């Protein structure tokens, strides 16, 4: 008999094992009640969302300001082209 055959023999015997009984109903229901009654904590999420919104607004304001400050926005984007043309 080799090791794998021995293993298969063990598995055949192990399949006949009767596991001890459990009584999980009370514990599971208690945990379900506890989970269902727990309020969802949205405050941290709200803070992150607010911070992201403020950051986005600042970036947008700076971008608009920069755009308006340039005389010809399209020319300002390609200054090197003008130099090359000269």
């Amino acid at each position, binding site marked *: 008999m080799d090791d*794998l055959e*021995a293993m298969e*023999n*063990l598995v055949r015997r192990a399949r006949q*094992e009767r*596991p001890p009984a459990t009584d999980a109903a009370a514990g599971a229901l208690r945990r379900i009640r506890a*989970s*269902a009654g727990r309020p969802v904590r949205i405050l941290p999420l709200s803070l992150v969302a607010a911070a992201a919104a403020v950051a986005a607004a600042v970036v947008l304001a700076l971008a608009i300001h920069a755009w308006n400050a340039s005389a010809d926005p399209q020319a300002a984007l390609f200054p090197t082209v003008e130099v090359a043309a000269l």
Partner: protein
Amino acid sequence: MPRPYKRAGTLITLGKAIPLAAGALAMYNVGTVDETDRRDIAASLGGDEAAFARLIRRHEPAVAALAWRFTRDLAEREELVQDVFVEAYFGLEGFRGDAPLEHWLRRIATRVGYRFWKRRSQRGREAPLADLDPPAPPGETDPAAAGAAVQALLSRLPPPERLVLTLMYFDDCSVQEIAGRMGWSRAMVKMRAHRARRRLKAIAQREHLLERLGWTT
């Protein structure tokens, strides 16, 4: 023809009667789900705690037997069984009813057990392999001792390979079933089974399994 069961709704809490329960019962016109289960599922979705307790009691032996293959520690197993039913409760809305409830619970139990092994393997725990006491011929080995020995050997495998062999050995799962249960491809399951057997053979040799079992001739 199985019909998918979908219901618009948010969190169902026990003890809250939701008027959709009667409608849910009507939508469960599927032959594959046991009639008693179907009634209790609908009642559970309606917030009937006693109905869900009946579901637990009816399916607990099957779930506990599978959980036993994930841990032989009684307290850990009890927690795993609870995890399965808690997860089942909160996922009950997603149960499509196109297969018996027990299949669905086995799928959840497999995933819960797999997560448990992955957590445990990070801590580097593996069961010790004890000698059989008393030694017995192959056909007369004490089933509990054989079970402990098999699980100790399997615990030396990485969780994915251990899972494949555990489901094949103890839950009579085919490659297709394991792939479906875990969301893996069939090729991956086959490869893991092949690797697991090869690795297991090496482990058995290293651990002198035959000598420990007293099966050397």
